[in-house]
């Protein structure tokens, strides 16, 4: 492009635009617009671009590649649009590029493999405007995202950029600009929804010549990234909005406060500012008029609270980001940085301003609802199929956003709740799915618009856990200045942590509510005042989950550990044994033909639950069965059962005549069998000269001798016995002995007391010892 010099009057900008419109984005040139937003870059869009460059050079095609900002559909990245056919492609890999060239760029036909489709059975949707994700969207703040290269001011001007500035400077007074914004009733997109026009007016009326325009790009809300995508993908629209604001309120200096987690945004903004300055759109005598405005970038350093206006000011001044009590408000003397009155708005708010000025307030008012005109960008994330940025007119229902644009829940599971407004917002349950979304309606159901994060949750999300998550975020981000927030959130978090780890107590719910209300009322800044919101709103709609956690020790979403009863569903289990391997506490036992979880050993760590490849490990609600009530067993016999369950092998030994049959290791097999038959026992213990146990000879060993044709007369018993038998101490519980005997498939168990043999116990002993009780129970049950 030839024109690189400063523009000195408004007419020149018009001419420049006409020139760019003619020369850039020509209709007949093949063009791909590849998304280079953060998410798509992470999925490899630069590799795709490289492939396009190589491929077009190889084939000698004059292909125009536009590296755009975020196009919205992050989940299916890298996404791109091929023009002039307007075909939308998703999940493009470098190896697809060859075919894309052949089919679309050269052949003008869609390349089926890269086209969006809802699922594998549905018809592919080639045109971008037909893709369900884009169909219901209406793009104002994101109007240029996906269309232009953010590094090029020429692109921005070519698509109509700085036309609003042109209009304002040439035909509107500052008051008229302000009135237009005020009439459009655009409400602050940062969260609280305060009308921007009122804010501007307030700042304009403040005494003093020096005023600041601040753009708040400290987008700390987890789950929101619309500001990032505007700063990265369309920085000039932010600059234009800020210049218009500066013109309206008479400010000379501006700041953009960006959080340090967004390095690409900082880079793109710096490029944009430099380009605008070079072109004379920013700086002294903008476009040859007497309007002066400069913008500096301030990087945050990782503090969520700095999104709060007074804390942000402190951070700009280079201090700890502590909020201050208001008033003075930012727009009043003493409120802004270094005491100068300032106007602070969200990035998205500024990005909407050029449209209002260019197309008029009436256009803006015609979109959305009367109370909240315009559109809002939402970061649709969580358990939806199509995650990404969506911009929709206000008043659209949650159902339309989640199910039509978002494509429904992953895996077609049940929708449980949607969390809006980040850590300050709340969870909205399924019954409000048809709620029209705007600032006021969200507040009325206990949530808020916030910066527009929208996290969808399904049946696998535990609401108590979600509340804990947000609270722990607020707790760790609390700046510590005022005690209600610092200590209140800490206490609430402690209670929630107890509840989610299965140690909830009666009274926890009441305490949470009480502390929550205190924090809400007593905190200094917005962070503290809204910190209990997630807890209070989940309590409002999902109280039964809290109760389940506390009283039944059960988490229906199977998220919290230390809850419920673990069982293996035998019908589903295909006995791979992974659960047994995963268990660090040896609670998964293997029986002859199945695995089961022994509750006494189970610590409910969920290792087996995660290990099972087919989800055969189930977590059930603990049943509190009272034997007396359920089976009408008299309380005395319950006592006996309980006592019996704790009996040891010693008790069994004492219940039967003491009989230890032993033999020395050099006696012949025949002799041993004779002794066994005389004493009528199934096994004989073999001892050495020091009376120490060295082996056991059982009926099964005798059978083995027969099979192997071993001579009963000649062979010594020590050669055919089972050496080093499993023994048990007499204090072992009966249940443990049974478990080992069944697992090791043995029927005779020597019981030791120290080195001394205390007796023999057979499987039959155990059965007959327990039998009366079992019979008794069975009789009572049936």
């Amino acid at each position, binding site marked *: 492009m030839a024109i690189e010099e400063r523009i000195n009057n408004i007419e020149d900008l018009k001419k420049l635009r006409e020139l760019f419109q003619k020369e850039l984005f020509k209709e007949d040139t093949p063009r791909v617009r590849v998304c280079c937003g*953060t*998410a798509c*870059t*992470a*999925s490899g869009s630069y590799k795709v671009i490289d492939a396009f460059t190589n491929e077009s050079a190889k084939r000698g095609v004059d292909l125009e590649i536009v590296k755009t900002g975020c196009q919205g*559909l*992050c989940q299916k*990245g890298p996404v791109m649009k091929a023009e002039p056919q307007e075909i939308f492609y998703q999940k493009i890999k470098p190896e697809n590029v060859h075919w894309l060239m052949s089919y679309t760029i050269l052949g003008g036909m869609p390349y089926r493999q890269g086209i969006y489709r809802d699922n594998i059975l549905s018809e592919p949707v080639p045109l971008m405007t037909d893709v369900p994700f884009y169909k219901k969207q209406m793009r104002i703040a994101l109007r240029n995202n996906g269309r232009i290269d953010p590094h090029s001011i020429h692109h921005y001007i070519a698509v109509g950029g700085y036309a609003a500035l042109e209009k304002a400077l040439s035909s509107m007074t500052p008051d008229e600009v302000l009135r237009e914004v005020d009439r459009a009733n655009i409400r602050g997109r940062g969260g609280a929804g305060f009308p921007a026009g009122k804010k501007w007016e307030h700042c304009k009326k403040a005494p003093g010549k*020096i005023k600041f325009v601040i753009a708040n790009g400290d*987008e*700390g*809300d*987890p*789950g*929101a*990234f619309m500001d*990032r995508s505007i700063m990265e993908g369309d920085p000039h629209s932010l600059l234009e909005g800020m210049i218009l604001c500066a013109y309206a309120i008479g400010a000379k*200096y501006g700041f953009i406060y960006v959080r*340090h*987690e*967004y*390095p690409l945004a900082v880079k793109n903004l710096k490029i944009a500012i430099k380009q605008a300055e070079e072109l004379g759109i920013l700086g002294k005598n903008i476009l040859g008029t007497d309007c002066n405005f*400069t*913008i*500096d*970038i*301030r*990087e*945050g*350093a*990782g*503090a*969520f609270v700095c999104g709060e206006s007074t804390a942000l000011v402190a*951070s*700009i*001044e*280079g*201090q*700890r*980001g502590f909020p201050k009590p208001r008033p003075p408000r930012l727009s009043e003397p003493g409120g802004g940085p*270094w005491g*100068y009155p300032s106007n602070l708005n969200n990035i998205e708010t500024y990005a909407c301003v050029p449209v209002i000025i260019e197309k008029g307030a009436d256009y803006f008012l015609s979109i959305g609802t009367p109370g909240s005109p315009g559109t809002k960008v939402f*970061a649709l*994330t*969580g*358990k939806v199929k199509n*995650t990404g*940025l969506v911009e929709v007119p206000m008043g659209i229902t949650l159902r339309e956003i989640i199910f039509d644009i978002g494509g429904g829940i992953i895996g077609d599971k049940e929708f449980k709740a949607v*969390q809006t407004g*980040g850590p300050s917002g709340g969870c909205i349950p399924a019954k409000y799915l048809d709620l029209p979304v705007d600032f006021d309606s969200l507040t009325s159901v206990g949530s808020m618009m916030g910066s527009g*994060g929208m*996290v969808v*949750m399904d049946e696998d*999300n535990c609401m108590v856990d*979600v509340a804990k*998550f*947000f609270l722990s*975020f607020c707790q760790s981000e609390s*700046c510590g200045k005022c005690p209600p927030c610092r200590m209140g959130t800490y206490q609430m978090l402690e209670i929630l942590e107890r509840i989610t780890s299965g140690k909830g107590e009666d009274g926890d719910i009441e305490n949470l509510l009480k502390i929550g209300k205190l924090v809400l009322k007593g905190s200094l800044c917005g962070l503290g005042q809204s910190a209990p919101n997630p807890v209070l709103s989940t309590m409002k709609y999902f109280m039964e989950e809290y109760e389940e956690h506390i009283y039944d020790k059960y988490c229906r979403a199977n998220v919290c550990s230390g809850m419920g009863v673990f069982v293996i569903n035998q019908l589903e289990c295909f006995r791979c044994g992974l659960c047994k391997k995963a268990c660090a506490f040896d609670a998964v036992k293997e029986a002859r033909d199945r695995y089961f979880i022994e509750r006494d050993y189970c610590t409910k760590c969920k290792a087996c639950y*995660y290990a099972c490849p087919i989800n055969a490990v189930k977590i059930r609600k603990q049943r509190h069965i009272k034997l007396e009530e359920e089976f009408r067993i008299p309380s005395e016999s319950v006592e006996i059962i309980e006592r019996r369950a704790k009996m040891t092998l010693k008790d069994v030994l004492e219940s039967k005549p003491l009989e230890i049959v032993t033999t020395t290791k050099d006696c012949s097999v025949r002799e041993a069998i004779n002794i066994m038959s005389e004493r009528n026992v199934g096994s004989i213990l073999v001892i050495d000269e020091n009376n120490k146990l060295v082996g056991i000879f059982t009926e099964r060993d005798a059978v083995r001798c027969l099979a192997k044709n071993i001579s009963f007369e000649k062979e010594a018993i020590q050669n055919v016995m089972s050496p080093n038998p499993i023994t048990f101490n007499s204090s072992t519980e009966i249940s443990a002995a049974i478990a080992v005997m069944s697992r090791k498939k043995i029927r005779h168990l020597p019981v030791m007391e120290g080195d001394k043999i205390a007796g023999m116990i057979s499987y039959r002993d155990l059965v007959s010892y327990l039998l009366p009780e079992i019979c008794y129970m069975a009789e009572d049950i049936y």
Partner: protein
Amino acid sequence: MEIKVNEVIGYTGEVLTERQKKTGILIHALQKIQEEYNYLPEDVLKKLSEKLAVPLSDIYSTASFYKQFYFTPRGKNIIKVCMGTACHVRGSAKVLRSLEEEFDMKEGETTPDLSMTLETVGCIGCCGLAPVATINENIVGEMDENKVNDIIEIIKTGKDSE
């Protein structure tokens, strides 16, 4: 280290006093130091304090407030596991746990040989690809077992991530 106060403070400097300018660039100066040393060494902070004529206690007050600043050396590779809402509901805790177990460390710690620092971050704004982790400057989306193993491999073999 060279800090040009007027350049850093930008256009706003025109209306500020010298003192305001010097405090105003404090965060930027700290970021520069951290960029160079990977953390904030005490002696460098002392020099900064002399240079800007800002009390060391004030510098410490600011630096200790922000999460970005560290007072102890950090590892060569820095892994940040995103703990944002979207990542949380899609199972970032599991990713963190497996990394913690693999290297036998807790989040926020550095391995003794300074090969790696494991951290968590509130949200990196890449929620569409949840769960997300960053290794140095690179973002890895849709973390699963394989990708966790890739990261472990990169750290253990010591080669830089692509």
